[in-house]
């Protein structure tokens, strides 16, 4: 429409093409930049036991509250522990936990959502009500309630997030499946007399992966923030174990005269989060999906 109305459609067309290739370049740049950031920080975290200059819980009461220096890149805390080493161990723990609490619910949710969307009827109703119920209670409140039942610690986070996280993926997969169900190739597979399970898992589910994978990158950031938040409240990872939320909470009482304990680990956290978001953004553009921060 706009195309025809413009005075000089050829130059507009040229400009659109140039714009489109610039977009593609931007999305590739965004993906690679994200991969570099995440790769670099993860590598440091994986190698923590070998590259950390001090131990995770190595107390040195003679050098408490040291500001950042060459000896302690991110300074030391109230017990003289090296903040940089604790951050390395913290990121290591955070990444391990977050990968589990993101991708296990993805598998469960995609399975349930696929079934609900494909079969419809009472199966759909039951799964849909379960999704609505789980999503009615704020995520963090639910994790807190699970902690209230089984006590503070990582178990509460695992059970809480597993119990809730699937719902987002189920909703995504269900919505996609409602469309895919009517596609020609599914009808063709049905016509060929393939079994329902074969159609469901060999033909339909691979096409559900794209939107779930794109969202899972945003979900990693959400889960990182959640895990750190629960630990910050004292309900997740327990001190003295290093975890980014724990380290930030540890520094809070000394905010005024030892600002580095709280601010610098948070900065590492934000860098990691930006890295994941860049990956998600680039990936979404390349796969022709929209990178949404929530479902």
């Amino acid at each position: 429409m706009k195309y025809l109305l413009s005075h000089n459609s050829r130059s507009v067309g040229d400009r659109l093409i140039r714009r489109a290739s610039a977009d593609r370049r931007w999305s590739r740049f965004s993906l690679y930049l994200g991969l570099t950031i995440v790769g670099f920080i993860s590598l440091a975290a994986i190698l923590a036991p070998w590259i950390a200059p001090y131990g995770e819980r190595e107390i040195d009461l003679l050098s408490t509250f040291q500001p950042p220096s060459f000896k302690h890149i991110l300074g030391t805390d109230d017990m003289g522990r090296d903040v940089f080493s604790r951050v390395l161990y913290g990121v290591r723990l955070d990444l391990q936990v977050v990968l589990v609490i993101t991708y296990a619910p993805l598998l469960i949710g995609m399975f349930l959502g696929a079934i609900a969307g494909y079969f419809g009827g009472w199966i759909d109703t039951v799964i849909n009500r379960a999704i609505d119920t789980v999503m009615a209670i704020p995520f963090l409140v639910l994790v807190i309630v699970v902690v209230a039942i089984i006590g503070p610690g990582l178990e509460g986070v695992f059970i809480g997030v597993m119990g809730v996280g699937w719902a987002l993926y189920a909703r995504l997969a269900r919505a996609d499946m409602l469309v895919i169900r009517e596609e020609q190739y599914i009808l063709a597979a049905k016509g060929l007399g393939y079994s329902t399970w074969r159609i469901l898992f060999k033909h339909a589910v691979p096409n559900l992966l794209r939107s779930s994978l794109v969202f899972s990158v945003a979900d990693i950031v959400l889960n990182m923030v959640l895990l750190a938040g629960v630990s910050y409240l004292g309900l997740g990872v327990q001190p003295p174990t290093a975890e980014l939320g724990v380290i930030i909470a540890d520094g809070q009482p000394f905010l005024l005269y030892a600002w580095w304990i709280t601010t610098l680990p948070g900065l590492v956290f934000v860098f990691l989060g930006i890295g994941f978001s860049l990956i998600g953004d680039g990936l979404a553009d390349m796969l022709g999906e929209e990178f949404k921060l929530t479902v």
Partner: protein
Amino acid sequence: MFSYIVRRIIQSIPVLLLVTLGAFAVIILVPGDPAQHMLGYNATPESLRILREQLGLDRPISQQFWEFFQGAVVGDFGESILKKEAVSIVVGERAIVSILLLGYSVFIALFVSLPIATVSALRRNRWPDHLLRFASMITFAMPSFWLGLLLALWFGLHLGWFPVGGYSDSNISSALYTLTLPAITIGLYLAPLLARSLRSSLIEELDRDYVDAARGRGFTETRVIGGHVLRNSLIATVTVLSLNVGYLLSGTVIVENVFAIPGLGTLIVDAVMQRDYPLIQALTLFFGVAVIITNLLADLSYAVLDPRIRLERKR
């Protein structure tokens, strides 16, 4: 229209019941004896027996649920062990603070995201748009408690403009004053979400024919954008906001704890720390019902504003 409202309300009843069941199940799922957890291991058998009776743990589960359900309908959840007061009164007092904080935060979030989203939709895929994308990535990746601490450090401790924590409710202006830093924190936590959804709905609206028509009639760009496009896009944004009220509430729980605001977020953490099960049950239900009602209202208002919705669902 009327039948749509009725149908939508009926739809949310099973979810309400399931949430009630979930809230009730909290005390059943606790491993071991809840009364023992609450009173500690030095409690006398006599006091344990009294508490069990008070919580109704000596009765069969079906009867317990029925009593919980009856209580929930009239808002009676028994007495809070922590506050030595009726749970409903404690929750009610705290809820006002949280609601005030939420309203303030949403206002700030809209204030921040409206101009940003408008500029970035009008300059799609140019530098203002990329800047928004990047800025929203930064705030999205920030843990809200960390952002809150940074704001407290800078505006509270260094500049001394706002209190570092606490809440004063002597009058509305002092309440808003003490809530400013927490509200900015939640507002910035929410802003990327709003800005992104507003941007995409603005882009969608800008492509519609009525925009060309309005421009063709010689309306000023301010009038086209401000009077027509923005208004239509806001409807979609309000829906996004209400569908993500759970995300918003999660942020509120954390931020209230950072700034020691006596709202529902600090209450639930205290309740968990003290193992005050009746209070935990009531709060779980309260949060659930709040989300369900918000979503219901959003759906209904959307249907009122946009007749296509109610017609489409009739099929």
